[in-house]
């Protein structure tokens, strides 16, 4: 009879060990957003806020929320190799006398899939990123500089925009 309890104990230990796994919620990783910082074109070391900025993805009806006036984090498309955003100076202004100035910025990149865990599956990293501004009659964006070619995390700015 003693051996039965011995085997039951072994069974319980095995059951406990086998069920040990992290919760099935993805906490180990995330697809990074593109970090863009706005700088003064005349004094290139100073950040410069964009007044009443609005962000809209080209092809998307919804506006994307602005994180702060001089630094934004925007999502890139994972199923295509380019994403375009319309950044509008004074877009959120309620003053009817102020002219809203939209500029379209297009980012092109290569999507790289990274497997994180069973709960997360794959996240996307964006490599070899390029940025260009569509020329129009009045560009408020004067220059775009690629600060980091690969978007793998959100620790520092990837793109610098001078205006």
């Amino acid at each position: 009879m003693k051996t039965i309890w011995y085997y039951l104990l072994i069974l319980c230990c095995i059951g406990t060990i086998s069920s040990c796994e992290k919760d099935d919620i993805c906490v180990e990783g995330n697809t990074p957003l593109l970090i863009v910082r706005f700088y003064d074109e005349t004094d290139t070391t100073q950040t410069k806020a964009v007044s009443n900025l609005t962000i809209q993805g080209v092809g998307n009806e919804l506006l994307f929320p602005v994180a702060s006036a001089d630094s934004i984090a925007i999502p890139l498309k994972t199923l295509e190799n380019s994403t375009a955003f319309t950044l509008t100076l004074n877009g959120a202004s309620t003053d009817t006398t102020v002219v809203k100035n939209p500029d379209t910025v297009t980012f092109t990149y290569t999507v790289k899939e990274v497997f994180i865990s069973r709960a997360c599956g794959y996240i996307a990293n964006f490599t070899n990123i390029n940025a260009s501004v569509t020329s129009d009659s009045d560009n408020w964006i004067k220059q775009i500089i690629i600060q980091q070619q690969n978007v793998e995390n959100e620790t520092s700015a990837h793109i610098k925009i001078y205006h």
Partner: protein
Amino acid sequence: MKHQRILKYIINLLVFALPLLNVAQTSQDTLVYKERYGLRIGIDVSKPVRAFFDDDYTGLEVVGDIRISKRFYLAGELGTEQKTTQEDLFNFTSKGSYFKVGLDYNTYENWYGMENSIYTGLRISASTFSQELNSYSFFTDTPYWQEPQEAGNNPDLLREFKNLNALWAEAVFGLKAEMFNNLYFGASIRLHYLISDKASDEFPNLWIPGFNKVTLSNNFGVSFNYTVSYFIPLYKKEKN
């Protein structure tokens, strides 16, 4: 004189023949019990049953053991499995075959005439398999551009990753009981410890045939089987 010599000869013969009388006395009249040794071959019935009910699984396992001493059995299992797993954000199919070999130790003291066993054992196991990623979608907590779960489309990823293999050790606890003449029913539970595995660069090994689900944070796994085996007797040996 001649008669005397003959008499001496006859007496000597009788005296020397005396010890021979002893032999006749010690004839064996005790019955010696002999245990049967042989080969047991069977299949794991839980796998075909599971395959019948689960569309995403097929599997077959052949089990066998040979008794090599009073309490030790040389045992092995050979099987093949295929399983499709749907995770939160991706779906994959794992298929392949495995081989396990090891020793079982019978801890049960059988009464005369019985041949049951409650055993513990060890196995060393290996599997070769492939995994195919059927679908995946990116995880992001900013779903601005696409609906969550919109499927990825990279053909380098949505393919079969071949020539994967794994090696692991198992501790086995089980029992086998003779239910009918030479027919044994058995059940066992196993604790696995993954020693090594060769995975593809893009997709890790998440389900290995014979090992079952691989947890990425530790190297342990569990499996069980329910077997029906037939005993083929080969020779008999004294139960000592």
